[in-house]
């Protein structure tokens, strides 16, 4: 401190060097991206990749909704699809959205970028494994392109046997290979995050002083590492049955088709929490910062993530209440299922209490977080009808289920993903975006989403089965509302895409800390330098927002002078 004057020239040089050096400029050319070990560049590549998959899956959804505007005629001729094409469209819509988009969306794209910076670290524990995980994703995606070229996949994303193993005439094996490889991509991300969070937390950051986003990623990583191998083995067994006729799942070969469902949901139910936990974690960050309040109930929110991750392993049988599993098993699974409802409710009430007496800033991330609250509440509450065994029998495999999981996965995860994307966008790319078009896009998408999926609840409780190419006339009005909603949703998301691309090209320069967050990623410049931090940031309470104050000169928040953060050791 006493050497301020002599050190000044050097410090200025360092500062200007810091201005020029950021991860986007560090190294030029395509190869510097493709061969990078930088978690930030890998995160950005993941972001581009998963958004491409999301676009493709979304187009398939629009094709489905357009076809369903009218039922097929007396000769079973649809508007523009054949039954086979329709079946392939819904299968690929599901498989692409689940395996290529939602599962990697928040952890692999946003998590990769933010996790090390939030830790004040240079990178994840295994940067090469990280890049390999991205390339596995690409290889998995190539397999799905092969599926498309070989005439599609018509088993649904669930690959139920024995249809998938012996009856389907489509490219099931490449799809299984693709999902298998994508599983390893997911496992590698999980291992990386687990090790990074255990070994690379900075001095002073105990587990219970981690930002809640990291708790969410930690809980997610546990599931990725423990559940995904089961999916891998299951898919391999299915490949063996399909190619070698070795009876595992097909009763005609001596197998058991219900066994497949147990294996499949043992992964795929916990996978639902791979999708939603990181989303909830983003909401915890956003609501605290944009309410200018310390998060309420930190420990309960953190532990509820772990609780959801663990309970999530014991409820897979609720996908199988009508499958022919024993009534005793069904009853036990129903009871266990409700255990997941409690931690979710705890989170919601803690978020609300955080907003109480706050100073709520309705910027884009917060608008998405509020949208999340609304949509996830509906998604979560409608889960109660499905967890309750007596009412599920009627609702199972109807559009009620379709509406429920879209409210959770789109209304929940996608909305949280967009909240996170808008929240960290200035940090990631050093650019601000047009607040107005971000919020307009959010509102249009919100209206479109509800118009798409709310009628599906009613259609489902009236008895409309899912995965139907055509339908009986009384369901037409619901289908038409839903289709109009789907195009509205698409329009909203186009505004979002335009908004973000416009920001990249013409956005104003972002300050280091535009929203006034107290977590460490706001301590480095926007976009972050290649090495993330020039000096090790001081760890404080991640939700102590008094650490920073608004500075009109930089148009963002800066460290409050003289404020001594509660330095944690």
């Amino acid at each position, binding site marked *: 401190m006493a050497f301020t004057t002599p050190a000044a020239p050097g410090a200025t040089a360092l500062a200007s060097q810091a201005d020029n050096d950021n991860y986007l400029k560090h190294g030029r050319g395509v190869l510097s991206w493709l061969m990078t070990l930088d978690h930030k560049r890998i995160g950005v590549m993941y972001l581009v990749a998963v958004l491409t998959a999301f676009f493709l899956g979304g187009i398939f959804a629009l094709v489905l909704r357009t076809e369903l505007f009218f039922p097929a005629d007396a000769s079973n001729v649809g508007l523009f699809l054949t039954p086979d094409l329709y079946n392939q469209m819904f299968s690929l819509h599901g498989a692409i959205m689940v395996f290529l988009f939602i599962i990697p969306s928040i952890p692999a794209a946003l998590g990769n970028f933010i996790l090390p910076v939030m830790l004040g670290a240079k990178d994840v524990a295994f940067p090469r494994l990280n890049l390999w995980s991205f390339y596995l994703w690409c290889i998995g995606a190539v397999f799905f392109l092969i599926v498309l070229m070989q005439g599609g996949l018509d088993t649904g994303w669930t690959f139920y046997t024995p249809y998938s193993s012996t009856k389907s005439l489509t490219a099931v094996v490449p799809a299984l290979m693709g999902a298998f490889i994508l599983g390893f991509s997911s496992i590698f991300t999980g291992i990386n995050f687990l090790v990074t969070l255990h070994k690379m937390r900075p001095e002073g950051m105990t587990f219970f002083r981690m930002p809640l986003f990291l708790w969410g990623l930690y809980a997610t990583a546990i599931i990725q590492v423990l559940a995904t191998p089961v999916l891998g083995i299951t898919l391999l067994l299915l490949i063996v049955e399909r190619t070698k006729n070795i009876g595992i799942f097909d009763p005609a070969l001596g197998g058991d088709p219900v066994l497949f469902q147990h294996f499949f949901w043992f992964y795929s139910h916990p996978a639902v929490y791979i999708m939603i936990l990181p989303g909830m974690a983003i909401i915890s960050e956003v609501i605290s910062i944009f309410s200018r309040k310390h998060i309420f109930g930190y420990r309960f929110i953190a532990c509820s993530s772990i609780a959801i991750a663990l309970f999530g392993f014991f409820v897979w049988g609720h996908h199988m209440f009508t499958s022919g599993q024993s009534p005793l098993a069904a009853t036990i699974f129903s009871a266990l299922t409700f255990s997941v409802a*409690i931690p979710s409710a705890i989170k919601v009430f803690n978020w609300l209490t955080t907003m109480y007496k706050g100073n709520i800033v309705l910027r884009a991330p917060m608008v998405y977080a509020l949208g999340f609250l609304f949509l996830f509440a509906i998604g979560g509450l409608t889960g109660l009808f499905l967890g309750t065994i007596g009412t599920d029998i009627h609702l199972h495999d109807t559009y009620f289920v379709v509406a429920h999981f879209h409210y959770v996965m789109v209304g929940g995860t996608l909305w949280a993903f967009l909240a996170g994307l808008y929240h960290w966008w200035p940090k990631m790319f050093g650019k601000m975006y047009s607040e107005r078009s971000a919020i307009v896009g959010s509102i249009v998408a919100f209206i479109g989403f509800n118009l798409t999926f709310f009628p599906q609840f009613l259609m489902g409780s009236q008895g409309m089965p899912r*995965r139907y190419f055509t339908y009986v006339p009384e369901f037409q009005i619901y289908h038409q509302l839903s289709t109009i909603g789907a195009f509205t949703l698409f329009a909203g998301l186009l505004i979002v895409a335009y908004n973000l691309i416009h920001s990249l090209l013409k956005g104003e320069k972002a300050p280091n800390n535009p929203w006034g967050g107290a977590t460490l990623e706001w301590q480095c410049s926007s976009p972050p330098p290649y090495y993330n931090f020039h000096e090790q940031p001081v760890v404080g309470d991640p939700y102590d927002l008094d650490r920073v104050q608004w500075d009109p000169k930089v148009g963002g928040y800066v460290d409050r002078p003289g404020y001594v953060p509660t330095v944690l050791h």
Partner: protein
Amino acid sequence: MSFQLPIALYALVNQAAQAPAPREANLIFPVEASTVARGLDDVFYFILWVSIISFVIVIAAAALFVLRYRAREGHKEEKTATHGLGLELTWTIIPTILVTIMFFAGFKGFLELKTAPQNAETILVEAQMWKWSFTYANGAQSDELVVPLGRPVKLVMSSIDVLHSLYIPAFRVKQDVVPGRYTSLWFEPILAGTYHLFCTEYCGTQHSSMITSVRVVPEEQYQAELTELANFIDRLPPLEAGERVFRMKGCATCHNLTAETRAGGGPGLGGLAMNASRAFVDGSSGTVDEQYIRESILVPGAKVVSGYPNIMTPYQGRITEDELRVLIEYLKSLTP
């Protein structure tokens, strides 16, 4: 004994449970046409009210906070407690109690769904890609389900190929039909009428055409229809009997009665007799005659018409000689 409390609580909050009359069709549900429907719907409405109240609380609080505490000139956040065990326990315990009630109420309904009365009329169900076949006590078969009003019916179900699921929305019952094992479900219809019967487990190309209906008819009519359905081949002229076999065996799911191909299905069957020869996928060709039609029904994979996939279920062993004979006569009679 500890089970009694939640069930009693549920009955207490759910006044409707005391009025046993079935509800008409409404915005949410089709008509309550079976004995279990009313009770299951009551559970649904109970959860619905809990959900609506919870939702309103959450959203009203969020909206209120956004309005009152939105960032504006002169407004500043206030420091409040950052944790509170009392609050946390409140919103842990209250939802726990509510979901416990839901679980027991749903469990009770499920027990009813799973416990068929001893005196239930048994009807055998066979599912295949893509039709339902129902066999009654007197040996009669049908492609739509006919059941007696006011008498419990138990369906014992099997599948010859892949997973299917039998679903009757008006009765609130559903059960997967699994190859290699028997599954069953039961219901007691309380309103005469015709209701949808859907397949709700995705089963391939024509999954959405695997639809039929359930007709609930008075006991005397039920007995009369069963008698009429049995041995119809002996009583009816061959063409009429053949038309009935055509319907019963579900041929119409995939084949039009004209020469036109049904979308996602096989060749149209109109004008078969006039097609002197057909080209097959293996490059060979053959003449259309009784023997060819017979083989194409029993072993469809033997000669697959050019341009079509080999997806038809073989009927070898699943159709009687009498049925086959009248069916072939009927098919030959179709014009393009």
